[in-house]
């Protein structure tokens, strides 16, 4: 069992959990992920490592409730434990000194980008981070991010804080501010946001790495559920990624593949609400 030692509610529906998992914490690197299972009947759910502490042997994850399993995990608190917690999986982010870099985070994507931004800063980069959310209340980890970045720009759809608009609008501002002199970009968030960032930076020729979140089962390259098309080649995101050169990713395919179990996901969520006997099972 992997006990939860800390729970913090970041905003409505998004929870931060710190989990005792010394073997994972000993090896975790920015960009990698874990797969968790809350109980014996649970799904194997992939979550990016949002932070790690080698001394205390803990891993931080941030999870948004989007469906049955994530909702279930978000009811767990201090004193509860995960039945399974495996990692670190996937390849680590390529951290080197690039110069001036921009990290673009959308929604819960701020969590996985945090350790990347920190590592990039420690590697001597000038790190500018853009965090996007629908509104002020849904913004997460902006204060933590400010501590590890040279500059943090916030974009909200309704303009309740920071720039009004999408992360691409904020990115446009940054690129203009530095006269296009940006050496590398990371973008993590919903697929549609990553796609928008990639389309925005493609004509500018700025290398843009994205972290893909396809459906996964084992996370070790055994099932192929996580396959994505990158530069016309099929890759298994769990072992070849999850980070890829965004300009080569077939986002439309990746987004479509995420929808395959939609009806089943609805049934899983429905089963606890209706109490059975309704024919929806």
């Amino acid at each position, binding site marked *: 069992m992997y006990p939860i030692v800390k729970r913090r509610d970041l905003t409505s529906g998004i929870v931060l959990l710190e989990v005792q998992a010394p073997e994972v914490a000993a090896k975790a690197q920015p960009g990698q992920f874990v797969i968790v299972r809350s109980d014996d009947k649970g799904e194997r759910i992939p979550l990016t490592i949002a932070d790690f502490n080698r001394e205390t042997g803990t891993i931080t994850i941030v999870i948004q409730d989007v469906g049955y399993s994530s909702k279930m995990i978000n009811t767990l608190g201090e004193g509860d434990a995960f039945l399974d917690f495996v990692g670190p999986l996937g390849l680590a982010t390529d951290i080197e000194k690039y110069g001036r870099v921009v990290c673009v985070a959308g929604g819960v994507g701020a969590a996985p980008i945090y350790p990347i931004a920190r590592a990039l800063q420690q590697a001597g980069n000038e790190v500018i981070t853009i965090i996007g959310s629908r509104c002020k209340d849904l913004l997460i980890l902006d204060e933590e991010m400010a501590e590890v970045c040279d500059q943090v720009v916030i974009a909200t759809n309704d303009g309740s804080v920071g720039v009004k608009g999408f992360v691409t609008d904020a990115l446009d501002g940054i690129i203009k501010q530095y006269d296009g002199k940006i050496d590398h970009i990371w973008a993590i968030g919903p697929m549609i946001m990553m796609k928008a960032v990639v389309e925005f930076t493609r004509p500018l020729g700025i290398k843009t790495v994205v972290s893909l979140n396809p459906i996964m089962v084992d996370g070790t390259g055994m099932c192929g559920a996580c396959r994505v098309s990158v530069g016309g080649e099929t890759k298994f995101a769990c072992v070849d990624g999850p980070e890829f050169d965004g300009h080569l990713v077939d986002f439309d395919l990746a987004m479509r593949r995420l929808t395959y179990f939609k009806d*089943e996901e609805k049934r899983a969520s429905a089963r606890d609400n209706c109490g059975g006997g309704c024919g929806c099972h």
Partner: protein
Amino acid sequence: MSLNKVSRQAMPCQDPKSRATNFTEVATGYSEEQALLEASRCLQCKKPLCRQGCPVEVLIPDFIKLISEKDYMGAARKLKEKNNLPAVCGRVCPQESQCESKCILGIKSDPVAIGRLERFASDYEIAHGCCEQEKAPATGKKVAIIGGGPAGLTCAADLAKLGHAVTIFEALHVAGGVLMYGIPEFRLPKGVVQTEIDNLKRLGVEVKTNMVVGKATSVDELMEQDGYDAAFIGTGAGLPYFMNIPGENLLGVYSANEFLTRSNLMKAYQFPDHVTPIRIGKRVAVLGAGNVAMDASRTALRLGAEESIIVYRRSREEMPARHEELEHAEEEGVKFQLLTNPIEIIGDENGVVKGMKCLRYELGEPDASGRRSPVAIPGSEFILDVDTVVVAIGQGPNPLVTKSTPGLELNRKGNIVADDSMTTSKPGVFAGGDIVTGAATVILAMGAGKTAAKSIDAYLKTK
């Protein structure tokens, strides 16, 4: 055959119609009466040829004799002297090409049903409490076993019996390998596998699940930092091959590994009580004709597919699946589209499979393997109307461990090179099972695990 009037006892099975809709075991097992009759057929040969056909050298006449004396627990104990997973082997061993192919009775009539008797004795043991296993005094040596499939489990058990401290590192949340994630419940109940694994724990073997070697730790780290004196790699053939035809990333195309893992390991057939989903269309095509393909096609029927079709490029004679599995599949209603090969999977406007473009084949001249190779018939293109495709054309070695272990010689396909004693090019590191041979069988993997345990024991004595 005047000595032997009793004929080979058939295995009782669930009725094909009803079993095609449930996941309960197809073969229900011998009754005591049948077991006694079948045991009576064995001639108790002084030089039992049958044993030569068993990679783990089960004491076949001895255990059968104990059955005929109604000492079923004794028979189980006898089996366990050589075979740590008899309840598994009794069910899934390709007996017809192993022990039973060598049985002397087979020359003139049917061989003794060794596998079925093996299952009978081990099921008796499982039902009546497990028998004690002997263990040598502790040697103070530590061995790491990487991968908890049949190869790893067997190697672990033998080393534990020799008094070594053994730890299994398994990537998934349960040990068992293909026995847990691949072979369906209706052929090999997971409870049976779990019982065998629990027995292993009782021998003192530590099983560390959720440990991906190559990520959370590495072979070098285990040996250099964690004090393991030797390591055995049994990571299997877990990398699914695809056909590399257009449309393979469409929605509704699964690798057999994904399809079977969802159903077996994650129990999607009990969805939504178990939360992992599986989506199954009305018409399912399974590409390939080995045991894996049979398992996938039969699983598809049980999950509610109206039609489940095996699509295979050669003819029936060349199908690599076990005869019994093929028969079971056919009885349950699996269809066969032979001498057919897909060239493209076609999707609808949402990217979901709606058909498969195929070519018809005819058999040409025999190839190097002696099998007549299929040749495409020009202009024979047609569309097979299906909405789910399961690719079951084989698996290769997963590179996570091999790539993270410097000094380990690999062959061209990425399999670990090991000699007859399962010794690799890296000192103290041994390997066996599918990771060495490529996808093979449970019993060959177990045989390799056993051989490796002997070699490791000998190696530890020199240290």
